[in-house]
């Protein structure tokens, strides 16, 4: 059997998830310029919200999924107003913000484990019987097709908002220089709040898709975050579209790494890519 | 004899020529000023001379013989060069005294590990801190100082190094008259001691008073040079300054 088509498909699927994660992460980073580690936990909360509504309460998915996305966005927004805004107003260093967001990540993951137990759960209705599609000699499930399409949709949607709306221009202005943006009359606080909401909602969407594809557990926040961060840095931190390129690069390297090396080194490979990029091309594939 | 010379020195940021094939020379024992409007490349020049940013083209010649296109910032001291910073870079969360002691002690990794500051170091620190009137604040953290005091501390740090060539990046900006006088006096004393001073400044009165020679930069290029009185009277210089 030729393994290549399947590997390419797997890389594309993984890359799409990473791309969605990187889009949200990069959007937040390019505006506030600090590494928001709680991003991973915020994402998982959205997936657990869907789990709660659809699996425990039995609500239909077309209600549960948007609700989950909204909840992720809201939590992200609330974290900004309760923690990060205060720290930024105090002119805390990026490191302080990083450590604080690390604390938020740790606490939220543990809270999820208390409420939903640390066990693995899946969002999809049945463990089998999903529709399968064949492409060349590889196969892909319905969920995975949705993942690919969602990644494209999020990318196009975000590009539209950032390029063509007033809000998008304001976001860019804040990211370039917050002080100047303030001076020209932009309500920077409001803009950043919205950015946190949108970025976190995108994160939630990514985690929900992962939940349908493979499953969720409270501690997946850290790996999700790290993949998003690696993709963003490799692609070009602060460059919203660069992250997408980084995500697919990461997806391909990981999956082909499994082929040529071995599966247990997957995480190590991902970080080796990150470190190589930081050393030899710190600005990423695309500069901001 | 020039202590530092640049030959076709070149530096660009994202295609913008910050320093554009600049050839200037700084004479030993003199005060040379570099003036020009904001963004004319003055600070970039100082940063190039002290290895803070890499050179893109041309070369720097020190003491007439040492030529280099690449210098690492930690090697600058070996050429007897030191500097202050436009944005006043102190060691904020360290006491005032430590801010000075750190430029006095051993530079080597092992040597410094087995050394504590000696009475000699302390004496030297006391001397320079008293000179700028900060000895009384030696135990306070640098970040607690007023803007003027911060600038004075930076000057004290430079004095402590005993370097022969001192680059002062806007040393007078934002100082109250009494502090201004201290800094001006120090500049004069340094000249008497035979030190070479390179001054980046906007205060034209002080430049006239202090400088032996001035360079006027505009958009990274040399616009004019010569004695302060004659150069500063030139129409093109005034225009460049007033802009548009």
């Amino acid at each position, binding site marked *: *059997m*030729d*393994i290549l088509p*399947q*590997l390419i498909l*797997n*890389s594309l*699927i*993984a890359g799409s998830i990473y791309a969605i994660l990187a889009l949200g992460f990069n959007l937040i980073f390019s505006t506030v310029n600090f590494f928001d580690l709680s991003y991973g936990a915020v994402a998982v909360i959205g997936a657990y919200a869907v789990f709660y509504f659809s699996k425990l309460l039995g609500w239909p998915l077309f209600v549960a999924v948007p609700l989950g996305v909204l909840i992720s966005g809201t939590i992200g927004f609330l974290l900004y107003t309760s923690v990060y805004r205060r720290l930024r107003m105090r002119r805390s260093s990026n490191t302080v913000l990083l450590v604080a967001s690390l604390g938020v990540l740790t606490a939220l993951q543990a809270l999820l*484990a208390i409420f939903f*137990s*640390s*066990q*693995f759960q*899946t969002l999809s209705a049945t*463990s*089998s*019987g*999903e529709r*399968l599609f*064949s492409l060349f000699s590889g*196969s892909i*499930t319905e969920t995975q097709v949705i993942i690919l399409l969602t990644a494209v949709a999020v990318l196009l949607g975000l590009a539209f908002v950032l390029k063509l709306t007033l809000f998008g221009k304001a976001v860019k202005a804040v990211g370039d220089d917050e002080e100047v943006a303030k001076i020209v009359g932009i309500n920077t606080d409001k803009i950043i709040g919205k950015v946190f909401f949108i970025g976190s909602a995108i994160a939630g969407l990514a985690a929900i898709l*992962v939940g349908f*594809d*493979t*499953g969720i*557990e409270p*501690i*997946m926040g850290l*790996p999700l975050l790290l993949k998003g961060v690696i993709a963003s840095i490799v692609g070009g931190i602060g460059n919203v579209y660069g992250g997408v390129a980084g995500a697919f690069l990461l997806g391909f390297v*990981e*999956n082909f790494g*499994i*082929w040529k090396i*071995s*599966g*247990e080194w*997957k*995480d190590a490979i991902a970080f080796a890519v990150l470190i190589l990029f930081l050393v030899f091309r710190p600005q990423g594939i695309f500069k901001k | 004899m020039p202590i530092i010379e640049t030959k076709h020195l070149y530096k660009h940021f994202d295609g913008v020529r910050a320093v554009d094939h600049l050839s200037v020379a700084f004479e030993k024992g003199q005060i040379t000023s570099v003036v020009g409007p904001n963004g004319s490349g003055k600070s970039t020049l100082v940063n190039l001379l002290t290895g803070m940013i890499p050179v893109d083209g041309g070369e720097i010649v020190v003491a007439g013989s040492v030529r280099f296109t690449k210098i690492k910032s930690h090697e600058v001291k070996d050429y007897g060069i030191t500097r202050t910073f436009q944005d006043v870079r102190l060691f904020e969360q360290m006491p005032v005294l430590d801010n000075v002691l750190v430029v006095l002690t051993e530079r080597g990794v092992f040597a410094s590990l087995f050394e504590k500051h000696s009475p000699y170091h302390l004496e030297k620190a006391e001397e320079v801190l008293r000179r700028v009137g900060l000895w009384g604040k030696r135990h306070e953290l640098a970040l607690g100082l007023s803007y003027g005091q911060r600038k004075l501390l930076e000057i004290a740090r430079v004095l402590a190094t005993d370097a022969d060539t001192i680059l002062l990046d806007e040393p007078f900006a934002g100082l109250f008259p009494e502090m201004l006088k201290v800094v001006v006096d120090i500049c004069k004393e340094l000249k008497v001691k035979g030190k070479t001073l390179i001054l980046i400044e906007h205060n034209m009165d002080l430049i006239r008073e202090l400088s032996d020679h001035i360079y006027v930069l505009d958009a990274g290029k040399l616009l004019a040079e010569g004695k302060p009185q004659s150069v500063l009277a030139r129409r093109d210089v005034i225009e460049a300054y007033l802009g548009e």
Partner: protein
Amino acid sequence: MEDNKPKILSWVILLAVIIVGGFFFARTAKAPEVAGPISLGVILPLTGDGAVYGEPALNVYQLAVDEINKSGGVGGRDLVLVVEDGKCNGKDGANAAQKLVNVDKVQIIIGGICSSESLAAVPIAEAGKVALFSPGASSPDLTGRSPYFFRDYPSDASQGRVLAELAYKKGWRTVAFIQESLDYPLGIFKAFDARFSELGGKTVKEEFPTGASDFRSSIAKLQSQKPDALFVDTQAPAASVRIAKQVKELKWNPPLLVADIVVGDPKTVSENKALFEGAFGAEFGVDPNNPKFQHLLESYKQKYNAELPYQAYGQTEYDALYLVKEGIAAVGLDGQKLAAWSRTIKDWDGASGQVTIEATGDRASGHVLKIVKDGKTELYTE
């Protein structure tokens, strides 16, 4: 020196923490009592990945203790459990053992469920002359480790061996392994691989780190090597389900071999009928006709309103309490004597069949073959 004040204050706080802590611990420490309830130490994972085994285990222990106490306890004294979370890792296993041995002064500890907990607890139990009795740790490393350690669950060596022999008999010559990087799955692989290569077969293996959720490329890689069967070898059933699902999604239908944690969990098997149909496993002797085992299943259902999961472990956990009861009745509450007594257990009738403890502390006898049929695990006979 005005700036010394906060420093002195902090030193005082530190000292206070140590003194108060010490006092607190010293006060809680108590000498072994001769009357009143008998404390039995318990180490099992209550948090983390291993919690899925720890929670039902605690239920079984409690069930057995209630039964024993209802029927008069041991010599008129009730049994009580002192439970510590070993988290299925060495560090917390050691912490838990330290507390049980030194603070609670128990004479016997039932645990750990995981091999890592047990391995770390052994030297502590030995130093404190406390017997350590594991109903779940299956690592071959524990065989003969200490005179104070014994177990009524057999070593993994036997599970891997039985399955390797089955695979060879089936005519399979290459078996692919997808294995989680943890001690228990690795133990099974090693035993399987040793026996299978001895017979003349070959294994190919892909490992994955705990917490991984996307196995597609590993599976595709194994598939491309054209093995005769696939062994899904994970620490907990959830990961096995994920892998089996992805195998199906890649349109691959190899004969499956699974670990005892899958065939031993009726819930996993029935909920994922389609995934595991026809899968082989080797479970350690669950005999549905054993009256004691039937009694355990019924009482568990009655008490907790759920099917007993991981029945292979449930039976040994249940037996462990009764064995401890007999041991204390026979030689008294003394760790050293209990450990020595354990070696004399021979053909003791329990829920898990006839228990014999060898001189190495291991349980004699091993695993039997099982097959998943129509959402249920059945005994496999050729």
